[in-house]
Structure formats: C-alpha cells, structure tokens
C-alpha cells in the first residue's frame, strides 16, 4: 500500500520538526491525566475541532491558493445531518457522519462548478454569499428547527453511548477527536505529496503552466474543494454531538468561516503544520479573552478586533503566516 507508506513518510522534514511534533502529540495524549479545569478541557477540544477545520481549508485554500470564506456552510451541513438523523430517526453518529459528508460533497459540486469559474477576490466573496444564503435557508426551514435550531437531551440516552457519541465526561470526546486529529494529520501528510497536491501547488504557481502540463485546472479545484468539504463536514458532525445544541446563527455564521480561514493563514497556509499552529494560537486566545475580558468588563467582541489586527499583520508582513517566518529564517541560515 503505497498510499499508507506515503502518509507515514515524514523523511523530508527536518529532525527538529519531527521532535517538536512528537513532543506536542505526547503532551496532547497525556493532557487529560494532568490536573485541569473543565474550561481548559473544552478549549482543548475546540482546538482539535478547529485544527481539523483548518486542515480541510488548507487543501483548497492553502495548497490551492483559492481563498475560501464559506466553510461554515459545510460545518452546518455536517452538524445538521447528524442532528436530524439522530433526533428524527435515531441514526447513530457513525452512520450519519458519512451521510453528512456525502451531502456536503454533493452540495460542494453544485456550487463549486460555477464558483471556480471565478478568480481571486470574486471567488472569496462568492463563497461567503453561498454560505450566508444557506444559513438563511436553514433559519426558516421548520424541518431542521428553523432559527431555534436543534438540541440533544442527553438524559434520554444512556451515556457513555459510543454509537451516538453521547457522553457525560468530556474525556471521551477528547480522545475521539484526538484520533480524528491524528487521522487528519496523516491524510494531510499524504495529500501534500500526492498527485493532486502537486497539481494544486502548480495551479497556485501559474495556471497557464499547470494547464500545459495536462492538469484540468477547473476539475482539480472542484475535486479538492470536495475533499476540503468532506473534512469540514465530518468534524461538523462531531461538533454537533459535542456541543449538543446547534442553531444556524452559531454553527453557520460568517464568524466560523472567517475563523477557519484565519487560523490556517495565521499558522501558515499551504504547510502541514500551519492550521495546527494557527488553531493552537487562536483558540486559546479566543476562549480566554472571552472568559477574562468579555465576562468581566462587558467587552464582548474584542476577539473580533483582534482577528482584524491579525489579518492586517499577516497580509502586511508575512502572507505565509507563522510557519512562513520559520521557513524564512531557515532559508536565510542555509544561504
């Protein structure tokens, strides 16, 4: 199985990267055994969820250079599919998750086909628009609870329920999403050196050259968009059973879309570690800022100001994010 060998192949990374990555993984694995607050635990789970969203974004947005600001619509499709399946027909998570992914991919083809005729900013704006339209539709759609959304009542089930992913203790969620995280990392490690991965980077480099090398640019983008979508949808399904209450204004809001893109960009778009670094910085920042400032001084919304500042700093100084800074230093040292 060449694919599995390639997913595990990390020989092109410097030793220090692998050392740091391993240390971080060991820490993440052991984290629940250290004394911690429930709040820290929740923040860690959010970190995993958003790193995975960011990895999905990174395929099309980072390697492909197509800035997508509409990922929340796929969070929504995944989350709602799982929720509706559970509440209406008692379909457990492990079945509703792939159903959600298939629906998301279907939707991504429908909107991806026309969307990828657009370039640059126009594409970015169009992704925002489709996402907002879908959100508005969900807000008036009675079948999915309209604006009030849907909620799981945990006492109706018998936690720990591994089929429906309903638990009382967060530690179960922690290890499940940790497993997703590992799979996500391995997938991305395979993807970045796959045929499609190289084709995308070539497209980002120069579309004319890419076409002359036999790459169907439009189709390659649509395919990758579907991959990004599946990633986000699967994690969206998990998100739903974890937070247990979803409504369009939360799950599918523009904030989520921007946060996903921002994390990947802050960490380093188009690199394996980028989304993880971005989520590692932004999610704790967001949680603790809300906790300390928001509640204390009524400064809700300050996180949005901080995002704005971060966007400006990235675009002005280092478009390749924090990882870009690391690479630049390395490059300078070599030469």
């Amino acid at each position, binding site marked *: 199985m060449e694919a599995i060998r*390639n997913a595990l192949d990390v020989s092109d990374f410097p030793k220090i990267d692998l050392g740091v990555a391993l240390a971080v993984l060991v820490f993440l694995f052991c984290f629940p055994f250290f004394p911690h607050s429930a709040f820290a635990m929740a923040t860690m789970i959010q970190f995993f969820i958003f790193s995975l969203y960011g990895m999905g974004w990174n395929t099309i947005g980072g390697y492909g250079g197509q800035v997508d600001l509409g990922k929340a619509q796929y969070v929504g499709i995944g989350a709602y599919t799982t929720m509706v399946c559970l509440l209406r027909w008692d379909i457990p998570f492990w079945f509703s998750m792939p159903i959600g992914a298939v629906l998301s991919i279907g939707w991504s083809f429908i909107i991806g086909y026309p969307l990828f005729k657009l370039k640059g900013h126009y594409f970015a704006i169009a992704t925002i628009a489709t996402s907002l339209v879908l959100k508005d539709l969900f807000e008036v759609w009675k079948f999915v609870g309209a604006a009030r959304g849907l909620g799981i009542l945990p006492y109706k089930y018998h936690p720990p329920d591994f089929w429906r992913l309903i638990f009382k203790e967060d530690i179960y969620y922690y290890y499940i999403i940790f497993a997703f995280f590992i799979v996500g990392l391995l997938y991305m490690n395979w993807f970045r050196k796959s045929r499609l991965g190289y*084709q995308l*980077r070539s497209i980002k*480099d120069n579309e004319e*050259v890419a*076409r002359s*090398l*036999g*790459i169907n640019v439009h189709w390659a983008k649509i395919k990758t968009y579907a991959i990004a979508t599946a990633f986000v949808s699967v994690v969206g399904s998990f998100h739903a059973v974890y937070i247990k209450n979803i409504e369009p204004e939360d799950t599918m809001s523009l904030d989520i879309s921007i946060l996903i893109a921002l994390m990947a960009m802050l960490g380093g778009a188009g690199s394996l570690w980028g989304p993880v670094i971005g989520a590692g910085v932004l999610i704790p920042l967001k949680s603790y800022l809300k906790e300390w400032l928001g509640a204390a001084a009524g400064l809700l919304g300050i996180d949005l100001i901080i995002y704005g500042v971060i966007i400006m700093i990235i675009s002005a100084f280092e478009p*390749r994010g924090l990882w870009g800074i690391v690479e630049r230093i390395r490059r300078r040292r070599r030469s």
Partner: protein
Amino acid sequence: MALLEVHHLVKAFGGLKANDDVSFAIEKGELLGLIGPNGAGKTTCFNCIAGMFPPTSGRIVFDGQDVTGLPAHAMARRGLARTFQVYTAAGDLTVGENVLVGCFMHTHLRSSAKSKADGILDQMGLKEFRHQLVSELPVAAQKRVTMATALGTDPKLLLLDEVAAGLNPSEIEATMAGIRRIHAELGVTVMLIEHVMELVMNISHRVIVLDYGRKIAEGLPKDIARDPQVIKAYLGERYVREHAAEIGG
C-alpha cells in the same frame, strides 16, 4: 506522416489578426524553426496549437486527429508539451517539484513519478538545483527547468518558446546541444520559436517565417537566410534595395 498539420489558422484579437491564414505541417522527427520579427504572431501560433485559446478559424490536426479547439490540458495528454517565454514561478515549488508535476501526468504513483523526475533532472543537469526555488536560479538554469518540466509529460511534440533568449554564447551552445539531445535521444519532434539566429539556423531542418501574422517564407535554413522577403521583414525595405547585389549573389 505529418505529426502536426495547421490549416489556414486565423487568430483575431478584436480587429487585430495576430495569425492570418497560416498553414504548415511538421513531420515526425523533424526540428522546425519558427522565426519572425517581434509581434509577428509566433507565440500566438504556439498558443493556438497548444490549446491555450481556440483559433478564430482554421483547423489543427495532431497525430492524425482533428484537435481544433481542444483545451490545453487535453492537448498535453495527447502528447504536446510547451515551454513558456517568461516562466513566472512566484510560488513555493522547488525545481525538483516543478519537474515532478509534469511527471505526474501519466501516473498516480508518487514513486514512479519521482524516479522519472530524478532521471530528467539528471539529464538536464539540474540535480544540484533540485531543492532550490526556480526564481533563485540563473536564467540559463531556469530555461532548462521549463524544458525539463515539459519533458516530464513524455511529449511527442515539444514547442520551445525562446529558450535561448537572454543567454550568453557558451550557454547558447549548451542549450543547442541540449535540444539536439532531446531530439535525438528521446525521439521528440521539436518546433522552436527563436530570435537567436545562430541557434535556430544551426539546428533547424526547416524554417518558417511569420511577419504581421502571415507566413512569408518556408524552407531550408540556408535558403531562408537569403530570401529577400525575410530580409525585408527583418531589416526593412531600404536595406534590401541598397544591398541588392549581395543578396542576389
């Protein structure tokens, strides 16, 4: 049998006819030069053949099949590769990765694409640069990268767009040897646009001349060099009048 036939090719941009009724053919195994003053429509002709945009009218037949209007990626899959005059590689692909992209055209497997790319890098003398960005290389090496990348797709016909522009004499010599090697060892039919006359006149079996979008001459390099029409296109009417004796003799 002709590998490529171009019949009455016309490409108009608005009112400007960049190519006007151009017809020619390339035989399998040939080395064909395409010359002409700046703005004569050489690159437009390449772009039409390579499917970068469809011709306004006319027919293009490649390897026995009508390929008029096929998109560039489909042309590449049928065995037509090209290089670009200005290779803007602003991205983060290294030399090795650039070549790898071409090699991925015929295979999904990373290992086979990789070993093929390694072979091409070696052949083209790019091994030492493999981990560098294309933009960091000297011009001559950049030109070799564009050729190496195109070769990764296993072309039957290779279109070279000014691969010797901006090179010094010894580099031109090396490029010439490189093209000959590609032609002879890999059995690739080559068509090249070139302003560097010593190269194009030296290695082409046959030369076609474009001027103002029209084909004004076609023939052996030694005949083309003495063709009054061609000299007029390059050097102007007056030069031809004043030097009529030399050209005629």
